[in-house]
């Protein structure tokens, strides 16, 4: 039986963005992350270049 769900492995910025996009499309997403929290490296960053925006 075909599924209409998506598995995303990795809860960093890429995984999260994909999940958000899919979710927006109404598709169920499973986001698998090995750490207790999603966010990945970007959550560890302070600001981003070149705009010096705070990442979080």
């Amino acid at each position: 039986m075909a599924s209409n769900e998506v598995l995303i492995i990795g809860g960093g910025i890429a995984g999260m963005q994909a999940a958000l996009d899919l979710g927006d499309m109404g598709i169920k997403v499973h986001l698998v992350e090995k750490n207790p929290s999603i966010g990945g490296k970007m959550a560890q960053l302070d600001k981003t270049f070149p705009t010096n925006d705070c990442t979080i």
Partner: protein
Amino acid sequence: MTEFSGLVGDFRAKVHRRARYVDQSKCTACGACAEKCPTRVPNEFNFGLDERKAIYKDYAQGIPSVYTIDPNHCRVFQGKKCGVCAKVCQAKAIDYEQKDYDVDLNVAAVIVATGYELFDATQIPEYGYGKLPNVISSLEMERLLSAGGPTSGHLKRPSTIRGEARLKELPKLIAKAEKDENQDGLAQLKQEQEWLEDHVHRFHLAKKLGFIQCVGSRDFRFHKYCSSYCCMHSIKEAIIAREHEPETESYIFYMDLRTVGKGFEEYKVRGAEVSGLRYIRGRVAEITQDKDLNPVVRYEDTERRTVQSLTLDMVILANACSAPRNIPQVARLLGVALDENNFVKTHPNRPLDTSVPGIFTCGCAQGPLDIPESVAQASSAAARAAEVVMTGGRALAV
């Protein structure tokens, strides 16, 4: 994820969920448990620059907003008497009996967004990473710069941070040694205390920073590829550091400055003009330290053709963007091919398609990218996945 099978449109995956020993549904993330937890553990999130407790959350805004017990450190799991968290948790969310469990999923598509890992700089012993306290990675630097970081954004030298911590500890140890009449030990401890006090007093903030590019990147011993974002990343860190502390001087040791994105070159120039960054062409040969734990970098200024050594307060390594260490297992499980660098291999014309139809990838899992690129890829991958969901994978299952 422990098992994976199926074809596009109909994948079956078993996901192993580790026990948090906290009931996710009950936990309100009030933090009382952590506050009361007696066990201090170095905080990986901040690269050990500060501590967390045995029950913790990676970071304040962490999602899901649930605390987790670290069974490797929790007294209860070490067979000691404690249970403090269970006692203080008003939501009664603590559940020491919780077990790992498996979840079976049936999905139409998979997106591999496993990101990257920092290159392990201890592989370059001449940089002294891991040995020299004031040589840190670029991500550690992020934590030091972060208002939410261990130093609340003050650019304290790691040796100072650790020294301060040690100084807090020392009186107890000294007292103990006095009690034990361990004269040698006492003398040593007192000497250490004296030295540390002086050190911490004299070296508080790191003002003279060296950024070393291409640590593990563009290096045939490790990664031949360019990690793409590090040049900009280091410049950014240097600029931010200067914003935090106007006396900061930064030196960026580079081979080529790859400021190739939109607005990047201007950013670099601004770094030099406004933030006083100094770009030095030359890859650093080695880092040693002097008696004050100041890192000393030796390098050839290839523009002047002179070998120099420069004493800094802190050195920040622009570690390469490496494929995560466990990615081969994941790939094996998914059946997707990896490239020579262990990034997920993608189709040349469909940059997000892996070797397995219905499995897509995005972000640093398929190669070094900066944030906007990752985001862009993520959206694309989502679109590709959606396509599968929408079409039941027919479009791809040819």
